[in-house]
């Protein structure tokens, strides 16, 4: 177990450098003159140019620049965005609202997917099962770039049930609609996986044993079947995290939530290199950590899995 953990952490280091390197290269490779991009239309003096070249190490080759950037990153210095704000401050502003949004979305997804998945798994071919099948197909076939503006337009503006935008200090209600939109990205697959896992487990021999033990139906389904059915669902959540992240960029952009996704959305649009790399680096770390946690949880749920 310990060795497995060490190995995974070392793999994470490699992945982290690989991912940041690619993003860094992509952001800086397509800039001909980053100093002019920073200044925009304004003219730039030679001394300013010299100072900026010094600050961003622009006279050095690309690998040298990456080296300086990583040195800063690893010592906690994310650098300064092209809008001249400290990126670490922008992150401190952006993360809390995004974490709230993500948590609401994940809780909604977990409740809807597991409850509806278990019910349709038990009553296969029933009305409920067929209705959820159609609904999940609709949700699955609707890309988030359509769903998010549509939901905002219909429920936020026309019907006025939810606020169409959210602030930095948004509470549960303000974040509910964006969280629903974000959750819809993954809820359909989670639901289908729960359903098929429950349907399959209900037919298994140990369910017959549990019934022969005189246990109530609630206990057979709620304890014996559910525990086994959650194994694939939990694994999927780790994979889906990446989907949720890219979904958050669109969702926060559409609903004007000043979170991580929103900042990234704007940074990509304005070609703000340091900002993009900074935020993506943190997202990469989050993704890696959550996937490690999911893998550990997987072993906790299924005793047949042992890591060495």
């Amino acid at each position, binding site marked *: 177990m310990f060795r497995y953990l060490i190995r995974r952490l070392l793999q994470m280091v490699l992945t982290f450098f690989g991912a940041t390197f690619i993003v860094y290269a992509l952001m800086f490779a397509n800039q001909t003159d980053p100093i002019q991009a920073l200044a925009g239309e304004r003219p730039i003096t030679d001394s300013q140019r010299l100072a900026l070249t010094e600050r961003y190490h622009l006279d050095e080759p690309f690998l040298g620049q990456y080296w300086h950037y990583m040195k800063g990153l690893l010592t906690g210095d994310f650098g300064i965005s092209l809008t001249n704000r400290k990126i670490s401050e922008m992150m401190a502003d952006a993360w809390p609202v995004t974490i709230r949004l993500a948590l609401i979305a994940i809780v909604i997804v977990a409740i809807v997917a597991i409850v509806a998945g278990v019910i349709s798994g038990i009553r296969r071919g029933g009305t409920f099962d067929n209705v959820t099948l159609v609904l999940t197909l609709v949700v699955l076939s609707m890309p988030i770039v359509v769903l998010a503006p549509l939901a905002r337009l219909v429920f936020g503006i026309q019907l006025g049930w939810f606020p169409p935008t959210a602030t930095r200090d948004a509470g549960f209600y303000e974040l509910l609609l964006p969280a629903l939109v974000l959750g819809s990205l993954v809820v359909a697959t989670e639901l289908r996986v729960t359903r098929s896992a429950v349907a399959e487990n209900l*037919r*298994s*021999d*140990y369910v*017959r*044993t*549990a*019934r*022969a*033990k*005189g*246990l*109530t139906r609630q*206990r057979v389904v709620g304890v*014996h079947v559910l*525990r*086994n059915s959650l*194994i694939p669902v939990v694994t999927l959540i780790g994979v889906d995290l990446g989907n949720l992240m890219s979904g958050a960029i669109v969702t926060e952009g559409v609903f004007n939530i000043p979170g991580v996704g929103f900042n990234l959305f704007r940074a990509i649009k304005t070609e703000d290199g340091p900002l993009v790399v900074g935020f993506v680096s943190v997202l990469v770390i989050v993704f890696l950590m959550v996937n490690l946690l999911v893998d550990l949880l997987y072993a906790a*749920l*299924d*005793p*047949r899995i042992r890591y060495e």
Partner: protein
Amino acid sequence: MTDIQAQIDVLPGLDPGAQLLEVNDLHVEFRTRDGVSHAVNGANFRLEPGETLAILGESGCGKSVTAQAIMGILDSPPGYVTRGEVKYRGVDLLQLKEAERRKVRANRIAMIFQDALSALNPVFSVGFQLAELFRKHRGMSRQDAKKRSIELLDQVRIPAARERIGDYPHQFSGGMRQRVMIAMALALDPEILIADEPTTALDVTVQAQIMGLLAELQRERDMGLILITHDMGVVADVADRISVMYAGKVVEEAPVYDIYARPAHPYTKALLSSIPRLDMKGQQLSVIKGLPPALNAIPAGCAFHPRCAYARDQCRQDPPPPAYDVALGRTARCHFWREVIGDE
């Protein structure tokens, strides 16, 4: 939850003096998209305390379905009990509501299954799966339940029971797993144990150990045992009486000695002559030609007639042969049983 032992004693019609288990004219069918399969077509048998009844038959003859119908754990749909009675001490279990029937399971009638690896839940420790019985049926605390579980594992002779209580099913060997299953079935001191091919998945030496353990536990507890098997060797060792099933019917029922000495049904006879014997070295084994009938197309008359050497016109027509009394406590569903029995 409280102890539900007492709730069973007040079931309407329960008579401690009545026959332990009596199955009369049990019919089970499976309704599938491809039509109706008649898995059990009138099974009859009875069981006394301390007695071992073997239900013998080929795969797909309805033995396991009969057992599941007695337990009330048929998958329904597609399985339905359409006719008959399953009487435990005078109470027809088929008439009970599910909530009451559930209390009979494990408390009075318990069952062990063929493949203990798939029959145990892979994600819970054996301790949890044992203790669950005491907690849910006897209202015990977690600690008491655990203590009882360790005692049980000791009784089925699992070495180092105290250390192994937290292990998961996949960490046990096949024989040990079947012992865990037996412990689980016996946890609540049932009066009837149904063992559905308990040794099929095990190798021969372990088979003998498990059968020995079952016989011993049965003696200690004066328990009625229904042993479902296709292994005639196992049956000869442990059974008191045998019911031979074919196409969902009990075609012959007799004490074990009689059936081996003088079978009264052509099917039983054919089964016995297909057992390899040492004195037959070098000869070909006799086989029963053909296959058991598909359960959705059982032939008219005697279901065995297409494969039977004794078959005549009478056998091919309905009504099928009734259960003729061959001797006291001995029946056979063959019009020509006299011929079969005297033909040795």
